[in-house]
C-alpha cells in the first residue's frame, strides 16, 4: 500500500530522515513510534504530500505521489494539533470538508458517538481542547477511505471518548483498511497496533509485531521494551 | 394736394441720393464681369454688389470710398498669386466675401485684405481660407473688423502669417471674429487704444492674441483655446484683460497667458483652465489680478525674474498641479483673500477666512524647475512629506510668500 525508498529530509540544518525505507502492506494497524524529533510526523506529512522530500520516492497505492494530489481522495488524516479556523462553526466546518471532498459521508453516526450535537452551532474558537479533538476525529473518520493516518489521536480525550475511538479503529480494521498511528501512549499502542515501526535517527530501527519486539529487547513489558531501544542506542 | 407735394419732395430727395451713390452689380452675366472693372467704373461712395460666383482676381486696389458687398458669399480666388485686396482710401466697407488662396511669400507679407493709411474702414462678414496673412491693418485708424471667419491651415511658423494684424493702427474695434489655424490669431504691434471683444481664437501655431509695444488696449470676453500660447502680452502698458477664457494651451512652452515686461495692467474675471501654465509672468509690475479662476492648470501662475508690487486678490485656485511657482527667494507681491482648493486650514471664528495662512509655493515646484524630469514624482507621498516640512519651516521658498487671509469658500 505504501512504499517508501531512500527518503531524505532536512529542515534547515536539522537532518530528520536519512535514507528511510519502509513498506506497508494493505490491511492492519501500524504504529509509528520513536523518540521525540525522530521524524514520525515528518514521515506522515511526506506521505500526505504536505512536506516535500529532498531525496527518495514515496508511492501510495502503487503510484509516485510527487506533485500529485488526487491520491489524497483515498486517505483520511487526523493532524497532531487540532487547529481549525476559529470563526467557523462546527457544522460549517464539517459541511465545508464534505463540500471539498465530494465523497459519501457518514458524519451523523460519528457526531452521536462522540456526543457533539450540542456543539454543532458553536464556533471552533470557543471549544475546549478535547472537544476540538473529537471534531478532529469526526472529520478524519467520516469518509470511507482505505488508508487512515492518525497523528496522536488520543490527545485530550476523556476515557469514554477514548473507548469510542478504539472501537472505531477496530471497526475500520475489520473493514480491511490500513491504519497508521503515532502515539506516545504505549498502552494505547499495545492495545490497538498489529505492527510496530520504530524510527530512530532518521531510519527504521525496527519493524515487526509486538511479541517480536519484546523478544528482541528481552523485555516482558511493552513500554519497557520501547524504552530499552532508546537507552540501548544511546548507551552504544 | 398737400400730401402729394410732400410725396414728391421725398421722391426727388430719394432719387437725388441715388444719383450720388449708385449700386453697381458684378456677376458673370452682368455688364460688369470683374471686381476690378467694377471699381474702375464706380464713383465715390458707390456700392459694388458682387453676386454669387467665382472671381479669379488678385491685386484688387480700392482707392476711393466704396462699399464692396457680396451677395451669398461670392468667392474671390487669388490663385496663390499674391495680395488680393488693398484699401488705400478712407470710408471703405468690405462685407460678405469669401476669399481664398492668398499667395505665400518669404519676402512680402501678402494679405487677403490690406488696409493702408486709411480711416473709417469696416471689414465684416468675410470668410478667409487658404491664406497667408488675413486682414492686415497698416497705419490705419478708427476702423472696425467685425464678425469675420479666418480659417488657416498653417503647419510651420516660418511660412505662415497672422489672422488679423494691426501695425501702427489706433482706435480699432476687433469684435466677434473667429480665427484659427494661423500663426498668431490676432497680432498687435505699436497699436494703441484697440478694443478686442468676443473673438474666438483657436488652434493657432503661436499665440491666440499677441501684443507688442501696444498700450492702453482692452480685450474682453474672448476665448483662446489650444494655441501655442493663449495670449502673449509683451512690452506694453496699461492693458485691460477682462472676462476672457484661456483653455487647453498645452505643451512645453504653452501658456494661457504670457506677460513679459508689462506694467500697470488689470487682469480680472478671466478663466484659465487646463493650461500647462496659466499665466507666465516675467518682469511685470503693478498688475492687479482679481477674481480670476485658475482651474486644473499644470502651473496656475509661474513667476520668473523680477516682478514687483503685483496684487492677487479674490482669485480661485482650483485643483492646479502647482498653484504658484517662483524661481527666486524674493517676494514683493501680495496674495490676499484668494480661495485655494489645496488649503487644509480651518475657520474657528466662522468669518469665512481661514485662521492659518496658506503657502501657495511648494518646495517641489523648485525641484521641478531645476530638474524637470522629477515631475513624474508629482503627488507622491515622499514629495508630500517634503512639501509639508517646507511649509512648517520655509527654507527654500520665500518666507513672506503667503496668503494671510485664505478664503474658505470659492468666490463667485
Amino acid at each position, binding site marked *: 500500500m505504501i512504499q517508501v525508498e531512500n527518503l531524505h529530509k532536512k*529542515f534547515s540544518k536539522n537532518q530528520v530522515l536519512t535514507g528511510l525505507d519502509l513498506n506497508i502492506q494493505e490491511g492492519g494497524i501500524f504504529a509509528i513510534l520513536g523518540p521525540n524529533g525522530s521524524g514520525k510526523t515528518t514521515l506522515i*506529512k511526506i506521505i*500526505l*504530500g*504536505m*512536506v*516535500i522530500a529532498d531525496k527518495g520516492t514515496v508511492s501510495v497505492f502503487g503510484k509516485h505521489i510527487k*506533485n500529485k*494530489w*488526487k*491520491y*489524497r*481522495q483515498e*486517505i483520511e*488524516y487526523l*493532524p497532531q494539533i487540532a*487547529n*481549525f*479556523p476559529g*470563526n*467557523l462553526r462546527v457544522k460549517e466546518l464539517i459541511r*465545508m*470538508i464534505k*463540500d*471539498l*471532498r465530494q465523497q459519501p459521508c457518514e458524519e451523523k453516526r460519528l457526531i452521536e458517538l462522540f456526543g457533539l450535537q450540542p456543539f454543532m452551532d458553536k464556533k471552533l474558537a470557543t471549544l475546549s481542547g478535547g472537544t476540538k479533538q473529537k471534531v478532529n476525529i469526526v472529520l478524519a473518520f467520516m469518509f470511507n477511505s482505505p488508508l487512515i493516518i492518525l497523528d496522536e489521536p488520543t490527545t485530550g480525550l476523556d476515557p469514554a471518548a477514548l473507548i469510542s475511538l478504539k472501537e472505531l479503529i477496530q471497526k475500520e480494521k475489520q473493514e480491511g483498511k490500513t491504519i497508521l498511528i503515532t502515539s506516545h501512549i504505549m498502552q494505547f499502542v499495545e492495545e490497538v497496533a498489529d505492527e510496530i515501526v520504530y524510527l530512530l535517527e532518521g531510519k527504521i530501527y525496527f519493524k515487526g509485531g509486538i511479541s517480536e519486539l519484546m523478544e528482541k529487547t528481552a523485555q516482558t513489558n511493552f513500554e519497557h521494551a520501547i524504552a530499552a531501544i532508546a537507552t540501548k542506542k544511546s548507551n552504544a | 394736394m398737400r400730401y402729394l407735394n410732400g410725396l414728391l419732395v421725398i421722391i426727388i430727395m430719394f432719387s437725388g441720393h441715388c444719383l450720388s451713390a449708385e449700386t453697381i452689380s458684378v456677376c458673370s452675366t452682368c455688364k460688369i464681369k470683374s471686381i476690378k472693372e467694377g471699381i474702375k467704373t464706380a464713383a465715390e461712395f458707390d456700392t459694388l454688389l458682387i453676386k454669387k460666383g467665382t472671381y479669379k482676381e488678385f491685386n484688387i486696389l480700392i482707392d476711393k470710398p466704396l462699399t464692396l458687398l457680396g451677395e451669398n458669399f461670392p468667392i474671390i480666388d487669388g490663385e496663390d498669386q499674391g495680395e488680393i485686396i488693398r484699401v488705400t482710401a478712407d470710408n471703405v466697407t468690405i462685407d460678405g466675401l469669401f476669399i481664398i488662396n492668398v499667395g505665400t511669400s518669404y519676402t512680402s507679407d501678402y494679405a487677403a485684405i490690406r488696409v493702408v493709411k486709411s480711416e473709417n474702414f469696416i471689414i465684416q462678414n468675410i470668410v478667409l481660407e487658404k491664406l497667408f496673412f488675413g486682414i492686415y491693418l497698416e497705419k490705419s485708424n478708427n476702423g472696425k473688423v467685425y464678425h469675420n471667419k479666418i480659417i488657416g491651415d498653417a503647419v510651420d511658423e516660418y511660412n505662415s502669417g497672422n489672422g488679423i494684424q494691426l501695425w501702427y493702427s489706433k482706435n480699432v474695434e476687433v469684435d466677434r471674429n473667429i480665427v484659427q489655424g494661423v500663426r498668431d490669431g490676432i497680432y498687435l504691434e505699436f497699436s494703441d487704444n484697440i478694443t478686442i471683444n468676443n473673438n474666438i481664437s483657436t488652434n493657432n501655431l503661436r499665440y491666440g492674441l499677441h501684443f507688442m509695444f501696444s498700450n492702453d488696449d482692452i480685450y474682453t470676453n474672448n476665448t483662446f483655446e489650444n494655441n501655442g500660447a493663449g495670449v502673449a502680452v509683451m512690452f506694453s502698458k496699461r492693458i485691460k484683460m477682462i472676462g476672457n477664457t484661456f483653455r487647453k494651451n*498645452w*505643451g*512645453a512652452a*504653452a501658456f494661457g497667458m504670457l506677460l513679459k515686461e508689462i506694467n500697470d495692467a488689470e487682469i480680472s474675471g478671466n478663466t484659465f483652465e*487646463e*493650461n*500647462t*501654465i496659466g499665466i507666465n509672468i516675467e518682469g511685470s509690475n503693478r498688475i492687479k489680478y482679481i477674481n480670476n479662476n485658475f482651474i*486644473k*492648470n*499644470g*502651473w496656475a501662475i509661474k513667476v520668473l525674474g523680477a516682478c514687483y508690487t503685483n496684487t492677487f486678490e479674490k482669485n480661485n485656485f*482650483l*485643483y492646479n*498641479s*502647482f498653484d504658484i511657482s517662483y524661481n527666486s527667494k524674493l517676494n514683493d507681491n501680495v496674495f490676499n483673500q484668494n480661495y485655494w*482648493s489645496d488649503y487644509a486650514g480651518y475657520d474657528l471664528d466662522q468669518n469665512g477666512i481661514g485662521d492659518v495662512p496658506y503657502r501657495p509655493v511648494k518646495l517641489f515646484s523648485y*525641484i521641478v524647475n*531645476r*530638474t*524637470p*524630469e*522629477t*515631475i*513624474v*514624482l*508629482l*503627488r*507622491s*507621498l*515622499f*514629495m*508630500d*512629506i517634503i512639501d509639508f516640512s517646507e511649509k512648517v519651516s520655509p527654507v527654500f521658498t520665500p518666507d513672506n510668500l503667503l496668503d494671510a487671509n485664505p478664503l474658505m469658500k470659492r468666490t463667485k
Partner: protein
Amino acid sequence: MLKILKYSFYDLMRSRWSYVYFLFYLALGFVLLFLNNDVSKAVITLMNIIIVLVPLIGTIFGVMYYYDSKEFTELLLAQPIKRSSIFLGQYLGVACSLTLSLVLGLGIPFLLYGLFKSNVIFDFSLLLVTGAFLTLIFTAIAFNIALSNENKIKGFGYAVLAWLFLAVVYDGLFLMSLIVFEEYPLDSFSLAATMFNPIDLSRTLILLKLDISALLGYTGAVFKEFFGTNTGLIISILMLLLWTVLPIGRLAYKAKRKDF
C-alpha cells in the same frame, strides 16, 4: 480553487476587519462628498489616500490572513486539493474582499451623490481600477513574504518594510538620483524607474488624468510620446498587470515547494 476562494471570501466577509475597512471608505466617501460638496477635490484627496493606504491595508491584511489561516491551510493540505489552488484561492479571497470593500465603500457615496451626472466619472473609475490593482499586487506581495517567513513577527515586519520602501523610500532614492544625474538626459530613466514600483505606476496612471497639463510642460520627446498619447495609459496598465501576475506566479511556485 473556486471553492477555496469562496470559503476564504465568506470567512473574511464575516470578519470584523472587512467591515471596518468598508465602513472607513464609506465614511471617507460621504465626508469628502457631502461635507465638501466638491467632486474634483474629493477625487484628488481620494487619490492621495488610495495610493498610500490601499497598499498598506493590502499588505497588512495579506500577512495577517496568511498567518491567521495557517490551521485552515494545514487542514486543506491533507485534503485532495491541489496546493496552488489552496494558496491562490486564499489569496484571491483576501484580494477580492478587500477590493469589494474599496469599490462598494467608495462607490456607494459617489452613486448617491449622483456621480453619473458629473464629468469626473472617468477619473473616479480610474481611481477604483487603480485601487483594485494595488490591492491585488500588495496582497500578493504580502502572501509571498508570509510564505517565505515562518516567523509571524518577522513576516509582518518585512511586509511593512516592503510597503514603506515602495511608498516612500523608493521615491526618495528616485528623486536623489534624478538630481544627482541632472546633466544627463533622464526622461527614459525616470519613466523606467516609475515602472519598477507599482505605487509609482498607479500614481502615473492617475497623473495622466489629473495633471496632464503639468506633465505636458516638459520638453523631452520620450515624455511627450508617453504622456501626450495613449501610450502612457496602455504601458502603465500592462505593467500593472505584469506586477499582478509576477507575485502571483511566484506565490504558486513557492507554495508547491514549501513544507508544512
